[in-house]
């Protein structure tokens, strides 16, 4: 009886400790994590993307990565029920030695080539020099989509190591540059290493251990320009877009997830407007495409936009923002990582084909 009470006491204390330590259950943009999400990855002839990923630990780290192509079935036609996103995925593995950084250009990928010449003081052109992380395939032409990398153990089983950080640099027309931090989802000790990754939520048939990773945020906040606003320093016209991917993704069934997003917009006069839109698989949306009244004719230069998944919608979402500046002297772009609030009760599920785990 005394031993049993002692064990119960330990378990209760550990549970309290777990609850206390799980106080911050949102995605992160400046801490290492077990899942890295790059919602906006483009290589469409006009734009290209450089992906940087680093292992922040003193041990080797493995990651299983997915490119998801969100381009429309018929790229020249508007999106609709008869023109859905392709939602085709390519997966590959990378390995990073201790503290190793790596990079690749999305349109070209990265081959395993030990003969890549290192940079020298007389030659700073040394593409792909270093320990190659693995064979990274190039994306297909006109790729607009997402990259997701999941930390795994050597057998391919998902692992809550929290050792990955990354950035994406998007170059437009070989000139304009924008950069954002990859969105990190922190894993916890409940990870059972199966093919279903549970982001938040309680124990269930799909998630017998409950949440294995932090939940997706309940609310995303973007403070920036109303669409078509005049930037106060240079006088440039600013257009803002957001790139959205659902948190729930099923790579086993290849069925894309739809999420309905509610927008609450507040201008500098504290006047509020609302809008909504539905995103399936992936979308890059100008604010004026979502609702021209709410975002363009809103009556002030700056707005605070709060976005949340609609009640009853099946998934949370992740998002990055981008501002395009256009004045008489030229154009510029800047990416922004949004602010987050709260956590979805979830869970959101990322399902990996089972054969990709056992290696």
């Amino acid at each position, binding site marked *: 009886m005394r031993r049993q009470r*002692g064990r119960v*006491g*330990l378990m209760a*204390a550990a549970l309290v400790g777990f609850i*206390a*330590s*799980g106080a*911050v259950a949102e995605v*992160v*943009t*400046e*801490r290492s994590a077990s899942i890295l999400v790059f919602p906006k990855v483009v290589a469409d002839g006009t734009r*290209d*993307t450089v992906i940087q990923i680093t292992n*922040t630990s003193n041990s080797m780290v493995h990651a299983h990565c997915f490119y998801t192509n969100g381009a429309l079935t018929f790229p020249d036609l508007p999106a609709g029920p008869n023109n859905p996103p392709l939602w085709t995925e390519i997966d590959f593995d990378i390995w990073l030695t201790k503290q*190793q*950084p790596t*990079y690749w*250009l999305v349109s070209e990928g990265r081959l395993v080539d030990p003969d890549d010449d*290192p*940079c*020298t*003081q007389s*030659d*700073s052109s*040394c*593409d792909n*020099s*270093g*320990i190659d992380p693995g064979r990274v395939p190039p994306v297909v032409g006109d790729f607009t989509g997402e990259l997701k990398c999941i930390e795994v153990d050597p057998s391919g089983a998902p692992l809550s190591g929290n050792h990955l*950080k990354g*950035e994406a*640099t998007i*170059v437009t027309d070989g*000139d*304009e*540059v924008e*950069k954002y*931090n990859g969105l990190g989802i922190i894993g916890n000790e409940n990870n059972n290493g199966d093919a279903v990754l549970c982001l938040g939520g309680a124990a269930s048939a799909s998630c017998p251990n409950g949440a294995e990773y932090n939940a997706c945020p309940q609310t995303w*906040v973007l*403070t920036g320009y109303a669409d078509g606003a005049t930037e*106060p*320093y240079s006088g*440039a016209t600013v257009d803002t877009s957001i790139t959205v991917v659902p948190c729930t993704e099923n790579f086993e069934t290849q069925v894309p997830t739809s999420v309905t997003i509610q927008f609450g917009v507040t201008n*500098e*006069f*504290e006047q509020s407007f609302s809008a909504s839109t539905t995103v399936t698989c992936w979308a890059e949306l100008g604010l004026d495409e979502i609702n021209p009244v709410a975002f363009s004719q809103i009556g002030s*230069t*700056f707005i*605070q936009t*709060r976005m949340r998944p609609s009640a009853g919608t099946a998934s949370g979402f992740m998002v990055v923002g981008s501002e395009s*500046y256009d*004045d008489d*002297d*030229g154009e*510029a772009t*800047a*990416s922004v*990582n949004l*602010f987050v609030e709260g956590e979805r009760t979830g869970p959101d599920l990322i399902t990996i084909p089972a054969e990709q785990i056992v290696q």
Partner: protein
Amino acid sequence: MRQIKWTGWVGAAALTLVAGTAAQAQIASDRAAALVNYPYIVVDGDEGVDTVLTLSNASHTDPVDVHCFYENANSHCTNDGTVCTDGSDCCDGLTCGLCVPGWNETDFNIRITPLQPIAWVAGDGLTLCTTDDPDERCFKIDGVDRTGIGGSSNAGSRIPPVPEDPFVGLLKCVAVDDAGTPIDSNVLHGTAAIEDDIEGLSVGKYNAVGFRAVDGAVNDDNELVLGGDNAEYEGCPNVLIVNHFFEGVDDPASEATINTRLVLTPCSQDLLRQAPGSAVVQYLVYNEFEQRFSTSRTVNCQQSLLLSAIDTTQEDRSIFSAGVSGTVTGQTRLTPIGDGLIGVAIEEHDEEVAAFNIHFQGDRAESDVIVLP
């Protein structure tokens, strides 16, 4: 038997305490906070550079009073007091003065209504509206012609322009009550867009770094304790991590030459006695061959340097140079000794810029303290 049981309970309780307190000490640039820092503000009218700042109230119901501090990190010549970056700027052909680092603060107060975003150009400042022109940059809710939720307004708000042009420094804003006492109201978030319009427009944007207040821990004195024992706010990180391109390398997407400016500022600052913080920073630099280099440098008040200028005056010989490190990208881990640090990075691709927030790891055991005047 009884002794073993007590040991189990005590050990579990200790574990709980450690787990509970460790969870609070994580600053972030993606969550609303009670104290927000903009580590890099730059204005230079001759060079066509300015910074557009935003600060928003995330509360749906309550206005928030904010006390802000511009911290001027300009150096000045001892002979004529002009702004300088190095000693050569202080020579007038006959004599030379010294270029001496400086640090002083200018503070101001504002009130932001519920969910309201405000924005201003650092070189211009912001006042209440004087006309009905909707394009006028001003505080829109004056409390006379316009009021917000519950009668709130921006009345009494005024933001001065930065005290010098050119200006390099930082901005710090803390949520306070109507008496000016810091409060644990985690509702502030902000952004800074660095704009260069001299040869075509270029914009780099970063999020302000937020220090969330610990519920119920903020007292009414003028010392803000960041992390450590008796923390009132989250603490500064133990290690900062920067993913970067090595200096002088060609952009894989465009062939532009890439350089990165790293801006660091100490977490501890005494604004009352005008004493900036200081830290010796240990840099560990890893290339893609897993090879490691290291260097160190002291940061006082603010450090804004290209990576290749951190360890040497000859950039081709820097460990941050692609020619020395041998690969395109690197990971640099920064460990401060002394005060904690926060920072941002600005990546320059020829004439184009992109800014990004740098990563954090771990929590400092020691507290950092900001003393308000």
